[in-house]
């Protein structure tokens, strides 16, 4: 048997064994199910929602005001709800972010180990509190307390337009809804942030300290810039959660249909698409259900846009993740 010299070949990652082919094919099939599910959601919702869009006009439906099935022709517009959804989610995120990052920073960089371990367990547990439990707590326990906070805020800063108040009660305002939501999303943001903090290259931090950096400058110049992309990803994840949240808000927010409450967050006049769907679904007629489907489509499209933005930011901030 003569020895032939080895022919040069390209190394390639392509699976060549049958079992490997099956393995990779199964994984690919499962992965494509994500695309299929998204497409199914869009197709089925659009199909049901089409009559409502046709009757109301897409732009008027999304930005107009009024929701009345008793007049002829029926008016279904979700402008106040859509704006309210964005406002409340944004406020909740603004409230939650500093607290969440504080907790993560405390756990990873300040707390002694035994305290950190128990705090991690606690935060992960709190992240799993279902939103309906938060809603129950928000309605019965926290609501009355937060009404007091809102009154105080109004008395102290009532001259600032956003804290003005001209309705009877302080309860069920966007302010309280966003507080409840903010508290709900704190564990989500902080567990993501903690994960990122603890996976950071410790050498970089040690190097900074060895160069004479103090706590504050290490955080500002080393830790936050390094982990910014991941943190922003976590924040937007929580923002998406907050926009789609239904039951936690349903009980603590009063919906208005005929005007947009632009900034008076202490007035009990808010809007939320998901709550709208939940509150109208039970007694809805066929056309109204179509309008609710359309509201769902709009909500989904808006969250899609937010998420696209999120992944764009995260990818820009962490280019190495897509390698």
């Amino acid at each position, binding site marked *: 048997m003569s020895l032939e010299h080895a022919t040069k070949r390209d190394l390639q990652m392509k699976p060549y064994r049958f079992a490997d082919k099956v393995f990779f094919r199964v994984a690919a099939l499962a992965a494509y199910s994500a695309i299929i599910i998204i497409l199914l959601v869009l197709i089925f*919702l659009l199909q049901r929602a089409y009559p409502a869009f046709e009757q109301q006009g897409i732009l008027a439906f999304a930005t107009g005001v009024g929701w009345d099935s008793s007049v002829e022709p029926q008016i279904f517009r979700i402008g106040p709800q859509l704006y309210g959804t964005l406002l409340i989610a944004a406020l909740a995120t603004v409230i939650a972010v500093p607290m969440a990052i504080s907790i993560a920073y405390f756990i990873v960089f300040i707390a002694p180990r035994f305290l950190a371990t128990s705090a991690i367990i606690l935060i992960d547990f709190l992240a799993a509190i279902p939103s309906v439990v938060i809603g129950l707590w928000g309605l019965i326990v926290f609501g009355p307390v937060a009404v007091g906070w809102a009154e105080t805020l109004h008395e102290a800063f009532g001259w600032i337009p956003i804290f003005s108040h001209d309705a009877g009660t302080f309860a069920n305002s966007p302010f309280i809804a966003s507080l409840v939501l903010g508290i709900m999303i704190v564990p989500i943001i902080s567990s993501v942030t903690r994960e990122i903090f603890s996976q950071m290259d410790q050498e970089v931090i040690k190097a900074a300290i060895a160069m004479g950096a*103090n706590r504050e400058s290490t955080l500002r110049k080393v830790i936050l810039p390094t982990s910014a992309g991941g943190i922003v990803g976590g924040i937007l994840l929580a923002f998406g959660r907050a926009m789609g949240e239904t039951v936690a808000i349903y009980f603590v927010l009063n919906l208005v249909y005929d005007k947009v409450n632009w900034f008076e967050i202490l007035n009990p006049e808010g809007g939320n698409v998901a709550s709208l769907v939940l509150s109208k679904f039970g007694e809805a007629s066929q056309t109204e259900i179509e309008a609710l489907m359309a509201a769902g489509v709009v909500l989904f499209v808006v969250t899609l846009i937010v998420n696209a933005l999120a992944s764009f930011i995260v990818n820009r901030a962490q280019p190495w993740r897509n390698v």
Partner: protein
Amino acid sequence: MSTSRVPLAPVERPIDSKPWSKVAPRLRSTVILVSVLPLVASLGIWASSGVDFIVALFAVFLPLQLLGGAIAGFVGYGRRGIADGLLVVVTFFLSAFVLILLLSVVWSVFATGFQALSPHFFFQNNKYVGPTTDLSYGGLGHALVGTILVVFFTTLITVPLGVATAVYITETQGKSRGLIRTMLQAMSGLPSVVAGLFIYSMLIASGVSSYAGYAGSLALVPLMLPTVSRVAEESLRLVPKELRNGALALGAPSWRAFFMVTLPAARSGIVTAILLGIARIIGETAPLLLTIFSNNGTNWNLFSDGMASLPTYLFLNLSFGTDGSIARAWGAAATIMILVAVIFTLARVASAPRKARKAKK
């Protein structure tokens, strides 16, 4: 440098010495002083002037404590320490503030909810129970059964899908990884109520099925899938490349390298993924309200008739708004939290580092 020369003898440094963790006595006493004084002062002002607690907290305690932190930082580390002191105070304050609120959720659920709990509360169902029936009769047994069935069915569908998706993203060189990732990201933003509307329009409005448990399970799939696959992906990504490449270099086919090296190495992460997925959906209410509605009796069949579940039971009782039904709602909340706690404990045990378990043997 120093004028007087000290004879330096080489000293063996103890292995466990931590010179950096020693706190100078002056700093320590300052820290104790500035942690106690603002507390005492603001408590005094709150008690004597009768302002709101929240005002005392933000207008008196926080500024005083910030000042104290700055002073302590200055005493310990000079001017550069001021920012450190402020940072520590802000961190502690914000963490404690929100933790107290979150713990108040847990505390009120357990304190109020346990009053409703009793053996029959777990075994009886909601038949013949009205909003005014008192707690000595009826319970959420039917909802417990419903939740377990629905969540189990969802997990059965989602976990293989999610883990396989993570495998596709991390282990293969597939062309559409970016697309899949984007789609998962989009799905993670899918509002739960939209997931409910989707299954409602696909199965129920189109007449394929009436309200049934499996419709609810299907509605929960898109909510659980992104969580499972994202966490699984993160944990697979954390497995060192050397391990995987080592297995491949030893001649293992990819699937064996995955099942025998990568997957065991990422085991705790995968368990966490399943767990977080279950925790994500166990309290989902809106999709279930739209797809399986509810049922006052116990229903063991996922494929016919409405089915109660813990979140919808809680929701409907809270909507009634009578004292008795709100007590039932608290009981349901406590039950959900107990379930979540049990899942967490199980997962902790399952994903405990192997070393620790070997040491116990």
